[in-house]
């Protein structure tokens, strides 16, 4: 039985540079930075005192207070973006076969704030356990997909992938596989993360993973720049409605693009460091191209993982040259993390949306904050530094790599009208 085709019919975004897909795209194409001093807690004693926070969000506009207080922020974010995506897709829930509608979500960590608050309350008490009955259901990462399935009455497969910063892409590939196998007609996929917390910042600081450019937060995320010094922690969410092509066509849905391939690999090397020669990155891009049945020369744009860490950016650029050969120099490459910061388990979701919007508009969003060339990188690689570039995009690839050596890539193709 041949695989079914899978298309994207709805999008939702909540990011440090825009709280809807449209606002997000406006920020991306204009090259806006979402970084600023941390407002969520007093970061005075932390090595890093800034992050890319979601701004101006009134959760109660979207979720009644009574329901919202039983959700960690990462689950609230999931609900907000899923609502936007379901609405964008024009889904009539009364007309769907709900047993073939699923939710496969991604989150690298889950309810970190909830965990911190509850444990702190216990640790500062007299030893009497007074854990809130909602502690565990709020904290566990799969609560996001559970909440979404309840909200829309989707009776199909429902779970959350936990593969660090690759979680959302992992989720999309799983949803893609279920739909092309005919096991689902439609899935809400994507990811959400809300780790700008004391433990989140403190923990990543301890790993020396974060930029410490406290005197200039908005220029701190500078992927592929010589003076990059680590990633900038971000938060937010992205949702994508994945749908079987004929199902989408039959209901007259708007189609953003087709998801044509998913790549999966493991570094099998180190729990946090990338493989120095980008072995896992090479394998995952090759696997994605192979799955999509296209050649390297067919790709126009790569939205890279590019977190602005010294090692990670180098190994990814090396991997691109190995996989794409001469065509590497014809590609547009950009790291939108230069603007959004690193949304960890949600990164793959908002970066997939960046790819889809880039295809839709024929505009490649930039890698902002480029000040100094790094001689490590071949000058013929086009990282789309500082300003967006116009370019018709037929095929875009998005990379995400996670601590633990998890690598996932997805490839989208514009449908010919």
């Amino acid at each position, binding site marked *: 039985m041949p695989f079914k085709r899978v298309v994207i019919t709805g999008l939702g975004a909540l990011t440090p540079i825009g709280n809807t897909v449209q606002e997000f795209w406006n920020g991306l194409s204009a090259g806006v930075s979402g970084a600023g001093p941390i407002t969520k807690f007093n970061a005075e004693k932390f090595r890093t005192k800034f992050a890319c926070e979601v701004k101006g969000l009134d959760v109660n506009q979207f979720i009644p207070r009574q329901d919202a207080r039983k959700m960690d922020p990462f689950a609230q974010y999931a609900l907000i973006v899923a609502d936007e995506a379901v609405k964008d897709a024009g889904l009539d829930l009364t007309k769907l076969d709900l047993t073939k509608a699923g939710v496969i979500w991604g989150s690298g960590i889950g309810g970190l704030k909830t965990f911190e608050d509850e444990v702190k309350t216990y640790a500062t008490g007299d030893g009497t356990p*007074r854990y809130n009955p*909602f502690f565990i*259901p709020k904290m566990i990462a799969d609560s996001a997909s559970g909440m979404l399935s309840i909200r829309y009455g989707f009776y199909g497969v429902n779970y959350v992938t936990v593969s660090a910063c690759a979680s959302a892409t992992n989720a999309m590939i799983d949803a893609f596989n279920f739909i092309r196998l005919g096991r689902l007609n439609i899935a809400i996929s994507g990811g959400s993360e809300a780790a700008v917390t004391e433990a989140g910042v403190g923990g990543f600081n301890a790993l020396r993973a974060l930029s410490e450019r406290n005197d200039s937060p908005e220029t701190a995320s500078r992927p592929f720049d010589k003076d990059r010094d680590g990633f900038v922690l971000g938060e937010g969410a992205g949702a994508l409605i994945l749908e079987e092509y004929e199902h989408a066509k039959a209901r007259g849905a708007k189609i953003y693009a087709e998801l044509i391939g998913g790549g999966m690999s493991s570094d099998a090397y180190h729990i946090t460091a990338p493989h120095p020669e980008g072995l896992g990155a090479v394998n995952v891009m090759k696997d994605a191209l192979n799955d999509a049945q296209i050649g390297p020369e067919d790709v126009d744009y790569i939205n890279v993982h590019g977190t602005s860490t010294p090692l990670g950016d180098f190994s990814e650029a090396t991997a691109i040259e190995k996989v794409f050969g001469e065509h590497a120099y014809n590609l547009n490459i950009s790291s939108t993390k230069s603007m959004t910061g690193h949304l960890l388990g949600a990164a793959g979701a908002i970066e997939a949306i960046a790819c889809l919007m880039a295809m839709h508009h024929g505009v490649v969003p930039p890698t902002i904050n480029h000040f100094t060339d790094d001689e490590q990188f071949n000058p013929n690689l086009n990282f789309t530094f500082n300003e967006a570039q116009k370019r018709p995009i037929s095929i875009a690839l998005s990379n995400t790599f996670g601590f633990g050596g998890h690598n996932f890539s997805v490839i989208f193709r514009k449908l010919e009208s």
Partner: protein
Amino acid sequence: MSDIKSKVIAIIVEKLGVEESEVTMEASFTNDLGADSLDTVELIMEFEKEFNISIPDDQAENIGTVGQAVTYLEENVK
């Protein structure tokens, strides 16, 4: 209204998101005020915290209405 009663009502309004007018002494947490089993556990914990007492499980099981909570607390809070 006793101090205990007004505090109990305030906790229920806050935790269950109901109108104060709905919180009558006869109102059942689950049947009238929309609480599920976890909400009920949370309410008992809030009462314990607010009034600085410990309510044993076998006692907590008998607290199903607003009035039962008020009566229990009035009898047991020092």
